């Protein structure tokens, strides 16, 4: 039984008028009959049609429902190979050869919800609950900074003990903590849906991206997976990003948890979400799209026996279709996946990954894995240094760039540049500059030896002499001890 105080808090969270105001003719943006019908109508797409759609993606145009459905329904393995290659081409066109690295930081795991697939669900007595104190948080931040991280996604359970005021305090601590040359420069937040008023509190303390995963866009599945708690209100979650945009948090991240419902439906749901945001906010859709696959979790049998689990081959396909469908949006591939899967799937167009992740509460500073404070099990245990080296072997330069949101390139401004395919003009120089910092301050000797070539390679690939001169001067300043230089 929840305490009275928790129940009172729960009663105050959801504001129905902040759901209904976004409806289209009284309905949410997931038109299930339309999605199912579109998927049915586009079965067996011919080669010419699929190639036309790929060409549209390559021009960085967002696909429509029927186009995405046609790609999802493709059964020709040769065409899939072409789609994989197109995904990578698009990624290079928009973001260049850089991969942004970040770290997840789980801050609290008290939760009022009962998600069937989640180790943090309220009823799971085998999960040890904890909420970081500000001192513990500072220790966690220092542990992450000491590895070289600059960007975080901080994750919170939905509970009055980790309400918006607590989250705001943790953001302040994260930004204020410094260690040597290092500091966290951008803090993104993955938390429960909030009201516009609460989101303004996070905006005011300098949140980066506000990320809420819908988990599933399929109404009946959503209801089944979220039987109780605040999360049982699907509409409140569907419009979490809309409210963030209205609150002035103009970088939002969306995602679906693959394994709950049919994977093709979920991709269509992500597209519907993107389109609805773009229609309501002047062309500005999600800053990032995530596509986590359900993973085993402590005392959570459903996570391993769902009928909709996605195999590796299908996972690669769905990531590819997302890349082609929304060509200009960042795509996040997390350490839920094994190193082997990540090294493969990153090549179809992902732009961000995490590394050296430890998702236990307070686990970075203890430097050990604590399964009973984790939401699920991780697949990739590589250290940051090792992952960076692996990326370098594949020709990708690691970026810790956080420039855009610190110089006004957020929301529509960022999206306008990305949609024109010009953001890489900024991403590549900033990747070079932040990677140089990493090599000087944090890299192992082995990584310095094996990955430094990327600085020269990417420098030579810069588009003109003016840019080269500017970047060279900045690199010299970094060598001389300055930090945090960006374009």
């Amino acid at each position, binding site marked *: 039984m929840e305490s009275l105080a928790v129940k009172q808090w729960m009663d105050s969270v959801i504001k129905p008028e902040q759901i209904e105001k976004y409806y289209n003719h009284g309905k949410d943006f997931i038109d299930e009959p339309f999605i199912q019908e579109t998927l049915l109508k586009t079965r067996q797409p011919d080669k010419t049609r699929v190639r036309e759609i790929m060409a549209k993606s390559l021009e960085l145009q967002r696909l429509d429902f029927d186009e995405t459905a046609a790609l999802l329904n493709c059964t020709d393995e040769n065409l899939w190979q072409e789609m994989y290659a197109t995904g990578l081409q698009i990624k290079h066109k928009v973001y260049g050869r850089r991969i942004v690295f970040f770290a997840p930081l789980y801050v609290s795991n008290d939760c009022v919800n009962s998600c069937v697939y989640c180790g943090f669900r309220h009823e799971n007595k085998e999960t040890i609950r904890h909420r970081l104190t500000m001192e513990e948080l500072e220790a966690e931040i220092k542990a992450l900074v000491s590895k070289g991280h600059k960007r975080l996604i901080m994750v919170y359970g939905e509970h009055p003990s980790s309400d918006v005021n607590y989250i705001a305090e943790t953001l302040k601590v994260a*930004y204020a903590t410094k260690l040597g040359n290092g500091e966290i420069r951008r803090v993104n937040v993955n938390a429960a849906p909030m009201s516009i008023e609460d989101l303004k509190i996070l905006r005011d303390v300098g949140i980066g991206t506000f990320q809420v995963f819908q988990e599933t866009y399929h109404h009946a599945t959503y209801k089944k997976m979220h039987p109780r708690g605040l999360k049982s209100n699907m509409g409140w979650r569907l419009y979490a990003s809309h409210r963030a945009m209205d609150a002035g948090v103009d970088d939002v991240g969306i995602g679906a948890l693959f394994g709950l419902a049919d994977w093709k439906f979920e991709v269509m749901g992500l597209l519907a979400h993107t389109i609805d945001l773009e229609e309501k906010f002047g062309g500005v859709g999600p800053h990032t799209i995530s596509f986590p696959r359900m993973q085993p979790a402590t005392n959570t049998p459903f996570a391993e026996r769902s009928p909709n689990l996605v195999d590796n081959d299908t996972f690669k396909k769905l990531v590819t279709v997302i890349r082609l469908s929304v060509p200009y949006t960042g795509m996040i591939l997390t350490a839920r996946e094994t190193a082997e899967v990540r090294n493969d799937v990153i090549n179809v167009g992902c732009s961000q990954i995490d590394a050296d992740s430890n998702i236990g509460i307070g686990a970075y500073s203890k430097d050990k894995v604590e399964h009973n404070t984790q939401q699920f099990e991780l697949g990739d245990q590589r250290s940051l240094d090792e992952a960076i080296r692996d990326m370098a072997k594949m020709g990708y330069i690691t970026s810790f760039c*956080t420039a855009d949101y610190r110089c006004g390139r957020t929301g529509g401004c960022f999206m306008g540049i990305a949609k024109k395919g010009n953001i890489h003009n900024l991403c590549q120089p900033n990747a070079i500059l932040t990677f140089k910092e990493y090599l000087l301050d944090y890299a192992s000797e082995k990584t310095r030896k094996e990955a430094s070539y990327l600085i020269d390679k990417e420098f030579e690939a810069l588009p003109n002499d003016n840019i080269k001169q500017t970047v060279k001067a900045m690199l010299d300043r970094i060598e001389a001890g300055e930090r945090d230089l960006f374009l």
Partner: protein
Amino acid sequence: MQNRLLSILDNHSGQSGEDIIPSLDQCLKQAYPGLQTRWSRVYGRRRWAHIYGGGEIFCLNPLRVELGANYGLYIDNPELIPPGELDTIIEGLQQALA
């Protein structure tokens, strides 16, 4: 220029920075045709959230101007403004958006 900026403030008395900035921007661009600007609302210690203007997509030496605690401005081509006038303009903007 400073007087023109301050007169805009008089005309928009009681309005927020977000409401005033388009007029300030227009005033600057009338005085210095071709000026590229990007205005931000500053949140917390880091976030410069875009509120107005675009600026060039790729500029190597933009001028970053902090306009008090709440607003910021990037000028991509500050060389269009004579150096003496630039300081006066920044002072005027800081007063307008304080």
